[in-house]
């Protein structure tokens, strides 16, 4: 259990920080997830740990977003545009600029590490979760669906939108 948590804690923190944009909040969420995971699922088989841990962490992150949104509504403030879950983007805005360079070219010489991370940070929450769990954490579709609490079909949709969104952002 210790090796598992030690191996996952840094990535968990980065995920939480990308979702909250706040290191302190991210640390709290990761600690909370670790405590809940260890006290509830310590006796479960080892192979079940990754999706279980991520399910707890992603639920904590979603709860955090809900609290922020309701607080934002109360105070009349709104979050950053594009943060709400998978609202349909304006197709005109999403259409590629014909004068822009090909995405491949843009990625080859322009994209820095910071830009890449910012692009991930700007993804709507569900797309971000699907992308990070599938592409970075390496969970398969079924485990990603378990971690996100949705169907496998939804995972594929979120991931496809996330990749489209990232391509879009990085070709600007």
């Amino acid at each position: 259990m210790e090796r598992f948590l030690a191996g996952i804690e840094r990535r968990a923190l980065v995920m939480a920080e990308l979702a909250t944009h706040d290191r302190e909040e991210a640390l709290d969420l990761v600690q909370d997830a670790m405590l809940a995971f260890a006290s509830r699922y310590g006796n479960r088989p080892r192979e079940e740990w990754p999706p279980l841990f991520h399910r707890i962490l992603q639920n904590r992150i979603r709860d955090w977003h809900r609290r922020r949104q309701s607080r934002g509504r109360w105070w009349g403030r709104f979050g950053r545009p594009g943060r709400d879950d998978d609202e349909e983007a304006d197709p005109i805005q999403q259409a590629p600029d014909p004068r822009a360079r090909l995405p491949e070219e843009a990625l080859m010489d322009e994209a820095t590490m910071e830009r890449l991370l910012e692009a991930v940070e700007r993804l709507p929450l569900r797309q971000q979760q699907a992308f990070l769990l599938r592409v970075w954490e390496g969970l398969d579709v079924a485990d990603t669906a378990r971690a996100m609490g949705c169907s496998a079909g939804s995972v594929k949709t979120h991931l496809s939108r996330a990749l489209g969104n990232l391509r879009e952002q990085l070709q600007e």
Partner: protein
Amino acid sequence: MSERLDDDLEGRIRRALDEKAEGLDAATLSRLRQARERALARRPGSPGRLAWPGGGAARWAGALAGVALLLVAGWTVWRQAAGPALPVAGDDLEVLASAEDLSLYQELDFYLWLERERKSALADEVEDRT
């Protein structure tokens, strides 16, 4: 081409994320370690946590015993509040059944002292006469 682009994009982002995770500062890593240690102390059966011999069944049995104890205690209190008065001890019963004024018993010492004084005064009087 789109697949190759996605692979390239995914690879670059994965590397950027890895670098971010590897580059966390010492203070953050220390807090992560503390969080991990706290979590491990909460594991079922860990030394820092109160262990229930027998596991879940014993825990349920303990909870049921606790509930039963509370019910018995509640029933006893209710019986005392709603039921007949407790039997009265013999001396108390005698006092209550007596036709004497209750204040006589409450100031019994005073009346005994008064009686002793009266007898003493009578004795002095008799002695003076003789």
